[in-house]
């Protein structure tokens, strides 16, 4: 929004736009020039393999015998091996054959190399970040909704628990909370489970729990503010019709509050997607940890960290677009 009564001149406008792009190009060019000074070699072509790569898989014979026939049909090739009493057929998709008809093969011999597309480490990291964030958002909403309702309850047990929870979580760093979840609670739970010979909780769960609890506290405050922003007359009107507290919340207050809390909620979840990068420290290979690993093997840190940042940007940007869409839809009813 421009300030009214202060129209910008057309020439000034274009000059400013030009200035913006000059600045942008200047910064990028400056960084590039600086990397040349330290003899950094940019190898962008090395990046795509960490997203998807073609794995070479060997197709091995399990029996001893003679290659009796090789048939090609479309992309697939069928190799049939025959011994004295049985026949086995292997199929190879888009590969290179190492045997010919009539060859003798023994168990363990490689018949062909087959190419297969596989998700690279960055793709897996991106997927894990998405998964962790998604689960933490769902739990964060549930925890936040109940904590927010408890926060405004007149029952001191509920109210004080909610205040304690919110203040504890908001008053300490997420990094410390992740450590507590993993090294304190995690150790306790898994040691006790091990004592009774039971299944162990994987680190991923503790990571998700720490994020969900962390987000829940902020969501609780957003929910509280959203509910309190609804005019008192709304609850008075619904209660005066004989509706219970719960009915009034479900049918009248929360639907109205929901619309108002979407924008702050979006901001909270976007910062949570970014905070999930901290989970790398408890051996969860999300996007940042994946990038760190790729950097140590590829030795191309500049490209990869930029790629990592852009991937987070893609996640957060598409998420905020999605929420804007929801917001528009609820506003237009």
């Amino acid at each position, binding site marked *: 929004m421009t300030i009214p009564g202060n129209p910008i001149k057309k020439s000034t406008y274009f000059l400013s736009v030009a200035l913006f792009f000059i600045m942008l190009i200047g910064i990028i060019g400056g960084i590039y020039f600086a990397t040349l000074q330290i003899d950094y070699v940019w190898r962008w072509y090395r990046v795509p393999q960490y997203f998807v790569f073609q794995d070479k898989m060997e197709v091995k014979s399990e029996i001893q015998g003679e290659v009796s026939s090789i048939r090609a049909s479309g992309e697939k090739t069928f190799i049939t091996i025959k011994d004295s009493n049985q026949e086995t057929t292997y199929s190879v998709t888009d590969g290179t054959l190492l045997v010919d008809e009539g060859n003798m093969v023994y168990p363990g011999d490689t018949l062909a190399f087959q190419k297969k597309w596989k998700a690279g480490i960055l793709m897996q990291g991106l997927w894990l970040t998405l998964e962790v964030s998604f689960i933490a958002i769902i739990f964060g909403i549930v925890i936040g909704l109940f904590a927010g309702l408890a926060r405004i309850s007149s029952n001191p047990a509920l109210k004080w628990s909610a205040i304690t929870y919110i203040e504890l979580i908001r008053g300490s760093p997420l990094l410390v909370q992740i450590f507590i979840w993993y090294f304190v609670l995690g150790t306790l739970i898994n040691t006790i489970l091990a004592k009774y010979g039971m299944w162990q909780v994987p680190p991923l769960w503790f990571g998700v729990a720490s994020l969900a609890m962390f987000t829940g506290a902020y969501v609780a405050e957003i929910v509280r503010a959203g509910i309190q922003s609804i*005019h008192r*007359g*709304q609850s*008075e*009107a*619904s*209660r*005066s*019709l*004989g*509706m*219970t507290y719960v*009915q009034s919340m479900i*049918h*009248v207050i929360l*639907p*109205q509050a929901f*619309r108002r809390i979407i924008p702050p909620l979006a901001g909270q979840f976007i910062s949570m997607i970014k905070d999930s990068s901290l989970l790398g420290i408890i051996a969860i290979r999300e996007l940042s940890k994946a990038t760190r690993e790729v950097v140590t093997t590829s030795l191309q840190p500049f490209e990869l960290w930029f790629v990592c940042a852009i991937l987070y940007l893609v996640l957060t940007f598409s998420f905020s677009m999605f929420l804007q869409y929801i917001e528009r839809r609820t506003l237009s*009813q």
Partner: protein
Amino acid sequence: MIHVENLSKTFFVPHKVKALDNVSVHINAGEVVVVIGPSGSGKSTFLRCLNQLEVANSGKILIDGIDLMHPKTNINKMRAEVGMVFQSFNLFPHKTVLENITLAQLTVRKRTKTDAHDKAMRLLEKVGITDKAKVYPDQLSGGQQQRVAIARALAMDPKIMLFDEPTSALDPEMIGEVLDVMKTLAREGMTMVVVTHEMGFAREVADRVIFMDQGAILETGTPEHFFTNPENERTKLFLSQIL
């Protein structure tokens, strides 16, 4: 129908105020009682106590013999019997006019959708806005909104209707349409307690007028008594200022 005994209420925020000071009133079924008084006299507080939106510190309120302030009384059940109309309408902005009127019928009275819908349409006809059933409240004028609010309260088939300055937030040309609906209700024998500054309405419809100031009832009587020869000095002063 309504029996109020020694009702007292003190507000401590923002400062100590006696909003109700030993108020005792008896209202019969079918009676229309208009409560008047200067602002801050406790008339709204009194009205809001009658459906427990405000809880008094001491005293007794009996509606149909049931003690409202007894802890075992199901207050939601009682509120369904006492309709309330607010100064600021308080329609549900996220629901259509029709949904505003059917919501409590479905959730509180547990009526079927068809029954609730039929009832809502009949009431909309009664308040004269059948053509607006499908629109949202913000597309209605103030007068129309208040008439929907009255229909919403009536949908619960209340025994008593409370009106809290129903015309104070309206543009002057819309006051008439709301008062007309209220007059119809009064003629049909509804028990009504109305807090208002509309002296014309009080004179025409009220069976009894109550004058309140500083949380206490100073004078009560028929409209003729009030508008021809009020006794209390404070009442005289108030009436001379507004008439």
